């Protein structure tokens, strides 16, 4: 009866707990063994939704029977319920393995699909079992497209996890994936193509068949296929732009696609794969296109244009013109902000674009409706304008703002004028005149600022050198984090004692460097790159640049992974991150105090660098307080000869003042005792100066690098455990990225070629070709060929191996 079914649906919707529906469960349990298949199937689904552990054991017998029932609807119902139950009662569901295994062999298409899903979930922690499952099914028969898609996903997982083991040279199961590209069902073809594009370190050769298939989808009449294909190709274009260029013609016709999502994806892909000559043509097409799409798509395109400009800096004129034109058209705040941000980045990174870029921005603020943008641009002008060859031409634009705009913008303009006056001595007289006029402004802030700057710039407008202190005032940044300053000011009680800015704590609370969950709701937009590895580099850069003493070290080249300096389960846990700059290294010691009864103060690390002669300590930043369970950092910076990859061993001693704490009240004793704690030594090795950067096509890169700075030599590595062990040892010694899966050594081989790539300090690209051979039973011989952009680097690589 249909009524019964409706009741089932409603029970599921209400999801009462098992004790609330004890009356209904008996009726449902009767239905579970009823002759009518539909009742059985649906009763199972309802029961499993409302069941608890005890009830489940009672009905387990029936569920196991249902899984292997002849009727596919019943079997599917039980299997799907099993998948849900795995979340709450995994031990019970795992007992059904045998039945589920049998169901995987079912001839009914969807039963196999559901059984496969359940079996994989049951076994997912057992890598070997998953491997076996995938192996048997890729050879067996899979009866539904959905099951095939599942299998493709599991296969990809197995491939991902197997590159760590030493397996066959050619990627395992690749042939299976490639074969799926010829399946009847479109969902399978697409799933396989996508899986191939997402393989780790995929080569152009592996990509080709997948891209061919996706290219066909681009011209399908079904929007879903076009969208799926163009979205996947867009992602591929980020890492392998050359592989996608064949599709450019099809992409260009998609620019006019009815579906605006497809059109935008097509444009951003073309922007990534385009070469320098096609840029002008693309710009023309995009100009027409921009008026058709909504703001959110426009922002995506703007970001892509910026990346394109950074890739082809010579094209900055036409791209900058394009950005400036769209800036003048209609658009919302976010959109215009994106354009302004892009122009600012281009000005900063492409020196030739600075003058025209600044002018474009000036023209924009003449007519800008958003105060935020105007002030941001004025601030930027203040920093960049004075450095140009003819700063005076910007003065007119800035001063006009003082006349024509609202108070906020006027105040910003006054500050900018002052900056020009401070940096460009020749302009001082004119600036003084302008600032004096600002003294009569309506708004207090504007008048105050004008007065302040007139006084600090000093003099009477003569053309004199500005005092360093004044420059520091105008341009320098606050020594303390704003948040702390705000808090201190709030806590300050107005009294006889003036507010002391030195009392503001300078420590920044470090955010835990957690990876953003994939389910985060922050919109990434259409063309955004997939979330990559956690941006620890950015976090470290921010952290280090917030410490004023390190600000002069320049750009951070590389930060190592944390190295433990204490054993597990010790009172104080310390690990160190080695930050490498051009002429300095900074050791960041992350410390944790695991003793609730102690509070450590003034924590520093005393470093003995006697076995690292090329290093001289320049600064040590102590950690003021290290309470229980609240990790903190202390830093020690060393100077080293620039451009040299100096190595050495550093022994470390943790020194601090320890104060007793009453854990129940949190009270701290006043007196403390000085103490020391020995840490393990840390080593700075050559591999620390090497960044692991892969290349997708090693051969092309090798050829284009040229032989000018090639250095080839042969080494005997002596007796080794195995060829694979020798290969791994050298890879770790050099710290470079293995390419095209060449770190995997086939078992029982007597020789192996390994391709490595990386970037050495000084931003030198390095490529290494290693040829290993077994010389006799255990001895390994190695031929090392290095190509790089710098002779000294090539030699350095050989040095590393020779001494390693």
């Amino acid at each position: 009866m249909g009524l019964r079914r409706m009741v089932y649906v409603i029970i599921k919707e209400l999801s009462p707990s098992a004790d609330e529906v004890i009356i209904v469960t008996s009726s449902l349990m009767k239905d579970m063994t009823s002759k009518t298949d539909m009742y059985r199937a649906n009763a199972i689904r309802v029961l499993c939704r409302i069941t608890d552990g005890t009830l489940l054991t009672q009905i387990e017998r029936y569920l196991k029977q249902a899984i292997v029932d002849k009727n596919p609807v019943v079997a599917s119902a039980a299997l799907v319920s099993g998948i849900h139950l795995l979340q709450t009662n995994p031990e019970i569901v795992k007992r059904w393995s045998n039945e589920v295994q049998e169901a995987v062999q079912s001839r009914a298409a969807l039963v196999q699909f559901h059984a496969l899903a359940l079996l994989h979930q049951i076994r997912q922690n057992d890598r070997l079992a998953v491997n076996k499952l995938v192996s048997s099914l890729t050879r067996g028969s899979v009866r539904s497209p959905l099951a095939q898609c599942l299998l493709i996903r599991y296969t990809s997982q197995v491939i991902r996890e197997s590159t760590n083991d030493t397996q066959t040279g050619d990627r395992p199961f690749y042939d299976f994936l490639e074969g799926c590209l010829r399946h009847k069902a479109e969902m399978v073809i697409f799933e396989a193509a996508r899986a191939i594009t997402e393989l780790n370190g995929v080569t152009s050769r592996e990509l080709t068949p997948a891209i061919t298939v996706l290219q066909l989808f681009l011209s399908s009449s079904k929007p879903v296929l076009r969208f799926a294909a163009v979205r996947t190709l867009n992602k591929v274009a980020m890492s392998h732009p050359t592989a996608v260029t064949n599709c450019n013609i099809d992409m260009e016709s998609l620019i006019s696609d009815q579906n605006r999502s497809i059109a935008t994806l097509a444009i951003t892909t073309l922007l990534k794969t385009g070469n320098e000559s096609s840029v002008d043509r693309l710009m023309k097409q995009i100009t027409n296109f921009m008026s058709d799409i909504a703001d959110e798509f426009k922002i995506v395109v703007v970001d892509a244009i910026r990346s394109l400009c950074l890739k082809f800096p010579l094209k900055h004129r036409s791209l900058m013109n394009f950005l400036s034109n769209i800036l003048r058209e209609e658009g919302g705040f976010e959109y215009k902000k994106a354009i302004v941000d892009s122009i600012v980045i281009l000005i900063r990174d492409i020196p030739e674009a600075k003058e025209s870029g600044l002018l474009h921005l000036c023209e924009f603020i003449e007519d800008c409706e958003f105060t935020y943008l105007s002030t941001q641009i004025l601030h930027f002008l203040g920093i960049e304008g004075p450095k140009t060859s003819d700063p005076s031409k910007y003065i007119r634009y800035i001063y006009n703002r003082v006349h024509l705009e609202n108070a906020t913008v006027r105040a910003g303009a006054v500050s900018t004028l002052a900056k020009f006056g401070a940096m460009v001595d020749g302009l001082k007289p004119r600036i003084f005149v302008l600032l004096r006029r600002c003294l009569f402004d309506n708004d207090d802030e504007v008048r105050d600022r004008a007065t302040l700057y007139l006084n600090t710039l000093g003099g009477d407008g003569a053309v004199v050198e500005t005092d360093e202190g004044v420059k520091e005032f105008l341009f320098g940044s606050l020594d303390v984090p704003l948040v702390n300053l705000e808090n201190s000011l709030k806590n300050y009680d107005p009294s006889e004692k003036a507010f002391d800015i030195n009392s503001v704590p300078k420590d920044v609370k470090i955010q835990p460097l957690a990876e953003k969950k994939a389910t985060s709701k922050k919109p990434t937009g259409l063309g955004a790159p997939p979330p990559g590895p956690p941006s620890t580099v950015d976090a470290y850069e921010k952290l280090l640049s917030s410490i004023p003493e390190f600000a002069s070290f320049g750009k951070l080249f590389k930060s190592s992974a944390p190295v433990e300096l204490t054993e597990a389960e010790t009172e104080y846990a310390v690990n160190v991150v080695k930050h490498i700059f051009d002429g300095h290294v900074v050791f960041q010691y992350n410390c944790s105090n695991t003793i609730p009864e102690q509070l450590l103060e003034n924590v520093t690390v005393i470093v003995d660098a006697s076995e690292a002669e090329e290093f001289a300590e320049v600064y040590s930043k102590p950690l003021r307080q290290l309470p229980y369970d609240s990790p903190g950092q202390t830093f020690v910076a060393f100077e080293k000869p620039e451009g040299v990859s100096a190595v050495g061993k550093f022994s470390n001693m943790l020194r601090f003042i320890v104060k007793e704490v009453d854990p129940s009240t949190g009270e701290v004793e006043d007196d403390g005792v000085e103490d020391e704690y020995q840490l393990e030594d840390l080593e700075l090795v050559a591999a620390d100066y090497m960044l692991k950067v892969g290349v997708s096509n090693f051969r092309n890169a090798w050829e284009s690098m040229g032989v000018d700075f090639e250095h080839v030599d042969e080494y005997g590595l002596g007796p080794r455990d195995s060829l694979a062990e020798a290969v791994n040892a050298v890879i770790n010694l050099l710290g470079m990225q293995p390419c095209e899966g060449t770190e995997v050594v086939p078992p029982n081989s007597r020789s192996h070629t390994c391709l490595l790539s990386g970037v050495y300090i000084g931003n030198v690209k390095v490529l290494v070709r290693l040829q290993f051979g077994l010389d006799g039973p255990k001895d390994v011989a190695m031929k090392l060929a290095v190509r790089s952009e710098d002779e000294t680097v090539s030699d350095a690589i050989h040095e590393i191996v020779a001494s390693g």
Partner: protein
Amino acid sequence: ELCPTIKNILLLDSEGKRIAVKYYSDDWPTNAAKEAFEKAVFTKTQKTNARTEAEITMFDNYIVVYKFVQDLHFFVTGGENENEIILATVLQGFFDAVGLLLRGTEDKKEALENLDLILLCLDEIVDGGIILETDANVIAGKVDSHSMDAGAPLSEQTITQALATAREHLTRSLLK
């Protein structure tokens, strides 16, 4: 998890109001959140023509495939990494099954009068986010087999009457 997951299936009318919806994910915990999503997805797709072929769009990190017929708007939503073609297959199954169940008259009035069939249909396509069936004939068959029973076929009763009868049934069996 690697299993293809459906986040929701929506059937809205030509003004964006609900006819039948089912959510399979916690991404929209309150009714207000659900209605906001429905409004957003409806507004975004309103002006497009999704009558001949299924259309597709992406927003808020979700992929939505949709198809319209007369004044009925069908939507299926998945996560941003889902296989779009699988979503389209589910959409097609739902779309065609409803067509079969409404016996060719695919408009809002007919849908509301057969709401129970549509709800059962939704129940037979996806269970807790996992795809149960994609073939429209099979889906419609599973739904129809219940209404071909003794007594007035369900399509003649409205949902409230059906619930009333069901409640009566339940009480009777409790008192046994």
